[in-house]
């Protein structure tokens, strides 16, 4: 995998931050999250990301991408998190594209060209209602039928499933003990019932019920009966890592806003920033955010280098990030006082985004359990 040079990464980061600063202010977030807005995110922005090459930072060159790795994706995610961008980076670029890249046939991988061009949105429908954070719990079944398959099952809420062009759906082949396969299913296929819902941080998606949804053989990723649990685990680890990067960006902005607020807000005759208790609080927040960012960076390097210890580093980075996100988000509101509790100020929305970052694809407790079980020895 061709890695970006440090300079290229710097340029990527700067152009992202500049773009979001100029084009994605908090007011835009408010417009897009209005319940009346049909999508809950911006198709125009997505088209711009495409034209700027950002959708393809980690896509293969033959898809028109830059063949970068998770680190380049993380640079995009951290800028998006810093701006509270609502577009479907995680489901499309990390989960959906990741699954297609790892499991897809050459023909199926042509979809990645459409993803790169901003013409195909993906959602990843794997988790089921009784799975919790567990990754191997799949009851949905793909029954062979007339050369293709029919899919039946219940999937929990998946980000962007309400609007994605294609759902990447996991299901067991033949019966509920069969190998887990991944299928490319048009969102509008007959037999698909979507229940849209908003998340706490006002992103959108849907729960998906599949009732005998008919798909061709070519819809099965890899067109074989290989169990894809390994790939599912891999893309979920990538998603956890991407979310760590998003959180790092969101925490950085939340910190900036909090420090700025305490410098301007006066009570008892002086700015809040002069009270040592609050200074130390902000230091604690800053140290926590830095630790999370550093752990995430270490995990990114290890992953992109193909290091065998990378998975554990990702899991640890998610634990560290989850803890930092909870603290920084919560104290961000606390230090804004009553203002922090209003819908009109950004800090409450950073709190909500950080709360999702903390828990998406597994919370700290869950990853600690995984680390413990996988043998600390």
């Amino acid at each position, binding site marked *: 995998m061709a890695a970006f040079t440090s300079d290229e990464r710097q340029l990527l980061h700067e152009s992202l931050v500049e773009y979001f600063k100029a084009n994605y202010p908090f007011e835009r977030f408010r417009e897009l999250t209005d319940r009346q807005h049909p999508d809950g995110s911006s198709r125009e922005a997505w088209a711009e990301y495409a034209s700027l090459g950002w959708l393809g930072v980690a896509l293969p060159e033959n898809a028109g991408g830059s063949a970068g790795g998770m680190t380049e994706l993380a640079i995009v995610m951290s800028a998006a998190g810093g701006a509270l961008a609502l577009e479907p980076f995680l489901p499309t670029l990390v989960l959906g594209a990741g699954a297609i890249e790892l499991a897809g046939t050459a023909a199926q991988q042509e979809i990645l060209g459409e993803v790169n061009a901003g013409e195909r949105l993906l959602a990843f429908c794997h988790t089921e*209602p009784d799975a919790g954070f567990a990754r191997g719990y799949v009851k949905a079944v793909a029954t062979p039928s007339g050369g293709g398959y029919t899919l039946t099952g219940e999937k929990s809420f998946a980000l962007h499933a309400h609007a994605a062009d294609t759902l990447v759906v996991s299901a067991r082949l033949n019966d509920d003990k069969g190998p887990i396969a991944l299928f490319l299913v048009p969102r509008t296929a007959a037999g698909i019932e979507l*229940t849209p*819902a908003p998340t706490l941080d006002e992103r959108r998606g849907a729960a998906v019920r599949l009732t005998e949804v008919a798909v061709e053989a070519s819809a099965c990723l890899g067109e074989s009966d290989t169990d894809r649990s390994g790939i599912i685990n891999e893309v979920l680890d990538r998603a956890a890592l991407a979310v760590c990067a998003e959180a790092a960006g969101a925490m950085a902005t939340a910190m900036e806003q909090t420090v700025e607020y305490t410098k301007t807000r006066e009570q008892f005759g002086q700015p809040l920033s002069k009270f040592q208790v609050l200074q130390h609080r902000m230091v604690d927040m800053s140290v926590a955010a830095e630790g999370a960012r550093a752990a995430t960076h270490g995990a990114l390097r290890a992953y992109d280098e193909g290091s065998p210890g990378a998975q554990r580093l990702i899991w640890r980075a998610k634990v560290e990030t989850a803890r930092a996100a909870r603290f920084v988000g919560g104290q961000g509101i606390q230090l804004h006082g009553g203002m922090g509790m*209003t819908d009109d100020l950004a800090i409450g929305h950073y709190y909500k985004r950080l709360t999702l970052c903390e828990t998406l694809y597994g919370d700290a407790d869950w990853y600690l359990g995984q680390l413990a079980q996988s043998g600390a020895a």
Partner: protein
Amino acid sequence: MFIRNDEPDPTLQDFRTEVRQFLTEQLPSETQRRQELGQTIGREEYGEWLKRLGSKGWLTGKWPVEHGGLGWSPDQFAVFSEELGRASAPPIQGFGPTMVGPVIYTFGTEKQKAEHLPAIVQHERFWCQGYSEPGAGSDLASLKTRAVREGDHYVVNGQKIWTSYAHWADWCFCLVRTDPDVKKQEGISFLLIDMKTPGITVRPIIGITKSHHLNEVFFEDVRVPAENLIGEENKGWTYAKFLLGNERVGTAETGKFERYLGHLRHLLSETKEDGRPLIEKPEYQRKVAELEVTLDTVKALAADQLAAAREDGSPTLMGAAALKLRSTTFQQEALQTILDVCARHTLLFETDALHPGWNGNTVGPDEMAGLLYEHLYRRAATIYGGSSEVQKNIIAKGALGL
């Protein structure tokens, strides 16, 4: 240490039974169900419920008999509050019964008592509290809303913020500045203002909960009869402090949070991971045990304050502050654990489900929207009623002498 000997009041158990009986008979099951789901209640429905309590004198049970109360002991009031919380009854707004009512019967004129007290006892009016301002939050004494005496009236100009339910209120009890030239605490007056007076504008504030109960209230040349002044001009801060003590002890809400622990246990048995209920995981069993430890401590601290109220007439300075600190962090921890469980359902926050009459499809547990609402709302628990930082200052200065 350990000296206090709480003689159990033999009538308390009968009283508890009486309250439960009343709730069973008088709390409409629809209202209860909607409270369980965290749905918002409308002004009419809420007013109806308060009137039912009022008809038994139970809104103001703690008041002295001579002012229309039932002379309840602090223990009776605690039992009453606890049972209401446990039964998912709509919580009683304290503005009339716990805040301005006692100020009026302690410091008010006979005319003011006659005008306002019976109306509070029976719930004929909604009240709101005009305290905080954009520039006066933790530093409440620096408030600037100005009241200038002109003949028989005060002319009020200024702005209040975080005014809960100002959009429902018939009356407002307001701290105003009547003397800008003295030490800030010594230039404040306590004024009762009819919300129908010309010049008052109420503007909604939407919270991070996506709901509306807070407001900004603007006063533009509002003419308030001078007879609406409580007590003496420029002595308002004293009356306000009298009221703050009552407000702080009220925030423990142990009955309600027992119910939330019940929600947590229910969620843990209904929410699965890898097909098994979360309650089977040792880490969640321990977490529930930890929360129960803290809840017991909060109840014990609240009991101490009850004893102080019984013996000395009011909670102790250190006690009220410590109780507020511990109870509010406990509330946040309990709701955080609930959120952690809901994270298995991706923290879906269907705010439409919080409106009565919702009959759409909710993804995930029915109670999730209401529980996430409460989690968001309680991020303010360490901010309202005197922030945790302020409570620590109170303990440092007032109790530890630092």
